[in-house]
């Protein structure tokens, strides 16, 4: 990827990761490494039924096992946290099951011991008697199901648009978002063609290689939580709320994360370890196993019905109905339903739009954010749909898109004007890299070749705040304090580059202090590709503040403006010794206007992310086997701050979505996950990825971003699934509408197309 540096030459340079040496020597700091004095470890006993009332819970055999320190249930938890329900959107999730279980794998009790093997064995001795209740697993069925997951809805109050749901009963709908723009009915009535399709995305999950892990300890001043979390500030605030303590008595520390991808947000194990530590007055650590990750958080399975009106090659109207399978607890699902829901019509210029987006409770593992915050599920549908329309209309899929895409200055469905969103450029670069206009060799034997493209976009999560502190020491060395979590995306390095650019020092010399809520200021969370933009702006402001104060110091000690006197000498002149600090601060919150009753707003997002994918495939028509031979990711990331890391983020995101497209799926049997291990749930390995992978960041600037930059962590995911499905139809004429795109599905579709369908 090309290098485009500016000013001091720090932004736009492929600075090697600051922590690179620590990672290749195995010495990087993770919560995994933490061992505290007199620490107990906890093992969780989990529900075996999807929905049921706990009739009795017998922990006596577990307690009696030698080496067990204590067995804890919700009754014990309530002695330290009387109202033990948490969550970012709804206070619906209990620290341990409270009278009822809502999904298979829900934590019911915890065994504490110093030896994890003893704790595990004891947990297996716990017995529960359940009165099973009717359960619901499908998101569309959940709309009307007689099985209701929660007796009563409990919105958290954090988001004002959920307040009306407080106390609502007999419903599984945690949020319904509606948008109406123009007059879709009129558009459909006047259309030349109307197309309607339904698409499904399956339930998958993050599986960071470092499973969830948290530890807590009591200190002189309160409670310290060491946790693999993407949202240290949220953890502090939510734990304070649960305990009824001031924020400053709760300290949350986060070292490096062994991957996050949206899993390690909000509260996961933190409330549990906090409560356990308060109960036993000893440090407690809980490290989940790989299997337990399947019972903690997944991506939303989703069903999307999309209907379009086309007149003279232009899309004139679009109806979108999206049902999000939120699982047993809301987590951040309602935000996904709304914040991603409003982009459901895609990056197309359509005057008449209606969107109905529903967040549903079901009796499955809770669903939350996963690299794209709902966008890949939407793009999967609207870009498959777009291709199907182009094909039916005998139009070139790229030309059809070009005739309809949203250009800067035009209003998106919410009414927010598009700005700095290079949709057309992404499309153009994809076409060029795919050599789209040249003849395409399709293969002669049973192996057929095809190609496809797709482009998607995403709004940033708004309004959210980031705050940063830049500290210049008396020797001129610079330290950055911020609560952005480096989970592999390279945020330490990028933020150091921003500081370095402003203060004109090498990025490698900037120290980045990791999130520690006693030390680093508030940040909403590291999610949704928001950090490079929001924290980047805060960091830039903090560095500029420090720079202004350094100039003031220079004036104060009589050094002329613009002279090259080293910073250390300025301090020396003022304090007569190596002493003092300059502290620069920066705080950033973008403008935002909440949607009106029709879902419309002039400021829905501070910036747009655009990502497109081109895929070439070979389909073996005798077996249905699909080989993706080429995968091209093109994105608008604004100005690439660190071109090498941008490239890795694009291809890494694309590969993750490639796994969700081709092979990954949580298999269920009556709500029980039957493939909760790497033996049965296969993520892409080095042999699975396409042989030819290319990445490109188009020439672009985000006007409001720090040095023209914006987020990049998710953009590579957007187009992968539909690009491959589009290529499969191009190769062999069959259209798949349900992920993943397995050989079995392709083969079944081929047989059906031949008029000789396979039996189930």
């Amino acid at each position: 990827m090309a290098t485009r540096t500016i000013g001091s030459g720090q932004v736009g340079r492929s600075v090697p990761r600051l922590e690179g040496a620590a990672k290749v020597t195995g010495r990087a700091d993770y919560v995994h490494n933490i061992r505290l004095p007199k620490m107990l470890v906890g093992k969780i006993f989990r529900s075996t039924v999807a929905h049921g009332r706990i009739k009795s819970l017998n922990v006596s055999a577990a307690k009696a096992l030698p080496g067990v320190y204590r067995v804890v249930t919700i009754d014990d938890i309530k002695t330290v946290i009387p109202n033990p329900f948490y969550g970012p959107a709804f206070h619906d999730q209990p620290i341990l099951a409270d009278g009822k279980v809502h999904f298979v794998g829900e934590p019911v009790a915890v065994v504490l011991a110093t030896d994890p093997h003893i704790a595990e064995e004891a947990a297996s001795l716990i017995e529960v008697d359940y009165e099973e209740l009717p359960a619901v697993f499908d998101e569309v069925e959940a709309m009307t199901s007689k099985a209701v997951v929660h007796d009563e809805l409990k919105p958290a109050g954090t988001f004002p648009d959920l307040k009306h749901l407080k106390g609502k009963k007999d419903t599984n709908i945690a949020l319904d978002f509606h948008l109406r723009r123009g007059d879709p009915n009129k558009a459909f009535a006047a259309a030349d063609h109307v197309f309607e399709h339904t698409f499904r995305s399956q339930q998958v999950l993050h599986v960071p290689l470092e499973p969830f892990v948290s530890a807590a300890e009591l200190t002189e001043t309160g409670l310290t939580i060491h946790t693999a979390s993407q949202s240290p500030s949220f953890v502090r605030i939510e734990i304070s709320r649960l305990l009824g303590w001031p924020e400053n008595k709760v300290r949350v520390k986060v070292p490096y994360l062994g991957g996050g991808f949206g899993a390690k947000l909000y509260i996961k194990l933190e409330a549990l370890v906090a409560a356990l530590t308060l109960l036993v007055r000893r440090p407690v650590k809980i490290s989940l196993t790989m299997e337990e990750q399947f019972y903690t958080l997944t991506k939303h399975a989703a069903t999307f019905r999309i209907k379009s009106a086309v007149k003279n090659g232009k899309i004139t109207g679009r109806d979108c109905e999206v049902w999000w399978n939120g699982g047993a607890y809301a987590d951040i699902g309602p935000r996904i339903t709304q914040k991603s829901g409003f982009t459901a019509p895609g990056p197309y210029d359509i005057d008449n739009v209606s969107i109905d987006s529903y967040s549903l409770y079901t009796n499955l593992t809770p669903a939350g954010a996963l690299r794209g915050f709902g966008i890949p599920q939407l793009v999967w549908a609207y870009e498959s749909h777009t291709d199907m329309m182009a094909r039916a209309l005998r139009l070139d899929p790229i030309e059809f898109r070009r005739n309809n895409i949203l250009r800067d200055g035009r209003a998106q469905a919410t009414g927010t004007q598009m700005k700095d969103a290079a949709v057309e450029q992404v499309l153009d670069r994809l076409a060029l890299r795919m050599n789209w206009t040249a003849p395409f060799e399709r293969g002669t034997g049973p192996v057929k070749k095809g190609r496809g493209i797709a482009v998607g976009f995403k709004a940033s999560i708004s309004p959210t705040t980031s705050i940063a502190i830049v500290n210049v020491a008396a020797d001129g060395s610079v330290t950055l304090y911020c609560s952005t979590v480096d989970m592999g995306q390279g945020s330490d390095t990028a933020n150091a580059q921003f500081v370095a650019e402003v203060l004109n020092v090498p990025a490698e010399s900037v120290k980045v202090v990791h999130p520690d809520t006693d030390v680093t200021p508030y940040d909403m969370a590291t999610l949704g590709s928001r950090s490079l933009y929001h924290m980047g702006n805060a960091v830039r402001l903090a560095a500029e503040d420090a720079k202004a104060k350094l100039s003031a110091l220079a004036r104060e000690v009589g050094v002329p403006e613009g002279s090259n006197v080293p910073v250390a000498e300025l301090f020396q002149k003022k304090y007569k010794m190596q002493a003092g600090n300059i502290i620069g601060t920066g705080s950033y919150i973008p403008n935002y206007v909440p949607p009106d009753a029709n879902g419309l707003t002039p400021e829905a997002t501070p910036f747009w992310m655009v990502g497109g994918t081109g895929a070439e495939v070979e389909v073996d028509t005798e077996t249905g086997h699909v080989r993706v031979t080429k995968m091209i990711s093109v994105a608008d990331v604004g100005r690439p701050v660190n071109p090498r890391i941008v490239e890795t983020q694009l291809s890494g995101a694309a590969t993750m979505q490639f796994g969700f497209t081709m092979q990954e799926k949580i298999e269920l049997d009556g709500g029980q996950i039957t493939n909760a291990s790497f033996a049965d749930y296969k993520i892409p390995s080095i042999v699975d990825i396409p042989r030819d992978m290319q990445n490109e960041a188009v020439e672009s600037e985000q006007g409001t971003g720090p040095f023209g930059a914006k987020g990049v962590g998710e953009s590579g995911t957007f187009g992968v699934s539909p690009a491959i499905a589009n290529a499969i139809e191009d190769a062999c004429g069959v259209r798949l509408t349900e992920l993943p795109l397995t050989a079995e599905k392709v083969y079944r579709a081929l047989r059906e197309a031949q008029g000789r369908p396979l039996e189930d």
Partner: protein
Amino acid sequence: MRTINFTLNGEQVSAHVAEHQSIVEILRDRFDLFGARESCAQGLCGCCTVLVDGTAVSGCLYLAAFANGKSITTVEGLATNGKLTPIQEAFLEVGASQCGFCTPGFVLMAGQLLEAHPDPDDDDIRHYLSGNLCRCAAYPEIIAAVKLAAGRLKAGTT
């Protein structure tokens, strides 16, 4: 419980271990070596890779008791006096780690690969590293890093 004596990154050590304990557990809890990490716990992801008498094993499945009399090398034992190995240097330069959790396993397996095949092509690399998973999917960079290291080792430039 039993006492085992083994060589750990070149040093003679001993430990009192239970029969069911894995080597990765002992390395973490008794020797403060955190580079080998339990992740999938099934020997399928490679995060727990350690070398036993020079051969890579899944440390989460290798019982500590079997280490008696053996020589164990972990990722922490590769760099000497702070000088990285050519493979570590190449991973660093190319940017072949993201979250870094899987990196020690890849570094150790890449070492095994280059011992067996000093001049590997892409397919050799893929085949050899197919037992190591990277959820961040820095696979293209890992392949590039292995090739860079192979080239330098062959040319004797490191």
